């Protein structure tokens, strides 16, 4: 929807979706209804008591929904229409890289040899899958500039935990025990959370006027108790830290490791590599930079790439390639013989489909294509920023840190709040009525009334123009009648939610039946 056809600006008659409260499949259950009529078994039935020990048998039947197939289809279809997704419209959620999910990847992942692979398949019968994983490891190693990769971590945060466990194993192997991990105050919340989870103390490093690591603060806090510095570059302000070589030197001079949070890798692929910047450990979000669906659209994956000195500690098993001497080509295997490994991070690689999609993405773009994707993501962000620097958006939503950003940028709605009485949250809610998902709000924390926007390379100029026009239109509404914006949204399946009430008094149980 473009601002030329402005959406309703008052709460009139509730829409059909607003009247239709979302239900669970259990609430639609009627005893005796079935989606399928199964024929009688053609073989003699063995009583279940003879097959399963009594102590493991249910005392009463499981409470499963009883529902006919058409109602099942309608139920989930109706729920899906209450959602906002990338296939509906632009989703400029900052530091999340909500790029288009190419359908080619889905076709490849759905091939039976990929989709029906059993997790317990003998490696000798899963050579193609292991080869794909090995090839993906090689690609990620090249992109990150670090030679060794493990595909085990299931998400970015899992990769972070792996990174700190690797750091601890590295120091323990040298007879050291360190207590602190440094994170900048612009860091993703998962960074300090991971530090606590891994048993280290979080030490915050301040941000400089230029939006990078405050070098004096870093020098003061980097001592022989620091195990690691976790950094995103470009950071969550979308700014590339030009001091990265010096930062790496400071960390390495006190014996710490340098961890790269790959959330913003989409800005630099093919242009610069974390390994070349001096990082020891990198996690990559396949569900961000490498186009795997996410945000409820599919499982994540957070592979890690590491330097030589960290390699002995990588989790096991590792996918390895062995060259056969008899001309039959290489074979692939899972290597469990890793005495210094931190262990296993998950039982099975049940997210194998993520590897297939990401590898398909890498192959279909190639090295040049990945570089172009990153360059276009930076171009798109800067085009959008230049549009938003004009008019009312320029007046009420200035940049949080006035420096040219890369693939994302942070605006501050402080002026809109003071001058117009509309906050970041109000603006975020109102643009939903125009058909746009809001950007990340109130993060990073050091920018007041933050709006963190990442358009990605997959949005067209027309869409970016529409988005800029929409923000302009919302601020125009706020100038004439702020209540339009503070009362939004009007057209979404549910209107303004009581977030505080939900947090203070959460209802987390769904009664069955």
């Amino acid at each position, binding site marked *: 929807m473009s601002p030329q056809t402005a959406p309703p600006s008052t709460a009139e008659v509730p829409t059909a979706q607003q009247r239709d409260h979302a239900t669970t499949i259990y609430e639609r259950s009627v005893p005796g209804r079935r989606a399928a009529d199964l024929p009688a078994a053609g073989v003699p039935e063995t009583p279940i008591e003879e097959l399963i020990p009594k102590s493991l048998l249910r005392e009463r039947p499981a409470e499963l929904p009883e529902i006919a197939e058409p109602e099942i289809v309608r139920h989930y279809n109706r729920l899906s229409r209450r959602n906002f997704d990338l296939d509906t419209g632009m989703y400029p959620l900052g530091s999340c890289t909500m790029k288009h999910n190419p359908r080619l990847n889905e076709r490849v992942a759905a091939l039976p040899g990929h989709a029906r692979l059993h997790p317990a398949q003998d490696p000798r019968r899963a050579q193609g899958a292991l080869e794909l994983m090995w090839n993906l490891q090689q690609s990620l190693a090249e992109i990150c500039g670090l030679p060794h990769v493990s595909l085990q971590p299931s998400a970015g945060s899992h990769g972070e935990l792996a990174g700190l466990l690797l750091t601890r194993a590295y120091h323990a192997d040298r007879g050291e025990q360190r207590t602190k991990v440094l994170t900048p105050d612009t860091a993703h919340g998962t960074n300090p959370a991971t530090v606590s989870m891994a048993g280290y103390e979080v030490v915050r490093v301040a941000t400089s006027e230029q939006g990078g690591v405050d070098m004096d603060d870093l020098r003061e806090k980097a001592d022989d108790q620091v195990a690691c510095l976790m950094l995103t570059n470009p950071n969550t302000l979308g700014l590339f830290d030009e001091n990265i070589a010096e930062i790496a030197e400071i960390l390495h001079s006190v014996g710490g490791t340098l961890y790269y949070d790959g959330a913003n890798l989409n800005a630099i692929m093919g242009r610069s590599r974390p390994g070349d910047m001096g990082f020891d450990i990198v996690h990559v979000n396949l569900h961000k930079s490498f186009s795997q669906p996410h945000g409820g659209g599919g499982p994540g994956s957070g592979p890690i790439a590491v330097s030589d000195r960290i390699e002995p500690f990588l989790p096991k098993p590792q996918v390895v390639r062995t060259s056969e001497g008899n001309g039959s080509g290489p074979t692939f295997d899972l290597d469990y013989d890793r005495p210094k490994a931190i262990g296993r991070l998950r039982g099975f690689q049940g997210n194998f489909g993520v590897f297939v999609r990401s590898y398909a993405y890498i192959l279909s773009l190639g090295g040049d294509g990945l570089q172009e994707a990153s360059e276009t993501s930076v171009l798109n962000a800067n085009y959008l920023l230049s549009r938003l620097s004009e008019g009312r958006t320029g007046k009420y939503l200035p940049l949080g840190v006035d420096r040219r950003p890369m693939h994302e940028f942070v605006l501050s709605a402080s002026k809109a709040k003071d001058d117009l009485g509309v906050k970041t*949250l109000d603006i975020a809610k109102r643009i939903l009525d125009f058909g746009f998902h809001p950007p990340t709000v*109130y*993060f990073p*924390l050091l920018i*007041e009334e933050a709006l963190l926007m990442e358009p990605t390379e997959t949005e067209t100029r027309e869409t970016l123009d529409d988005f800029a026009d929409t923000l302009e239109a919302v601020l125009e509404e706020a100038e004439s009648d702020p209540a339009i914006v503070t009362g939004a949204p009007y057209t979404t399946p549910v209107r303004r939610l009581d*977030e*505080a009430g939900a*947090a*203070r008094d959460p209802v987390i149980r769904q009664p069955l039946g």
Partner: protein
Amino acid sequence: MNAAAYPEDLKYHPEHDWARVEGDEAVFGITWYAQDALGEVVFYEPPAVGTTVDKDKPYTELESVKAVSEIFAPLSGEIVAVNEALGDAPEAINSDPYGEGWLVRIKVNDPSELDALMDSAAYQAMLDG
């Protein structure tokens, strides 16, 4: 939400905390500006009575719909009472930051620390600057 206010009888800390000195004790809370910036507070777990707090150091956390934030002590001392009522009704921090929304009461260690705090006018000048 009430209107912005910064009572004259309070002393202010740059991390947006206030202290009301009563004899050799002081009551702490967060300022109107702080509660407005945090948004609706959804969780507050009072620290234990008897805990020592150090000036300029965090002594507790508040969780709002936006974030979990550290709360800094404007003065040093030992906690002698905490506002238990906020456990069930943290919204008082938003609706009445200088009254029902008080956080802790301490026995002040060093009254001279007060000199480093701002009065209402100086704090408002800092907010405007």
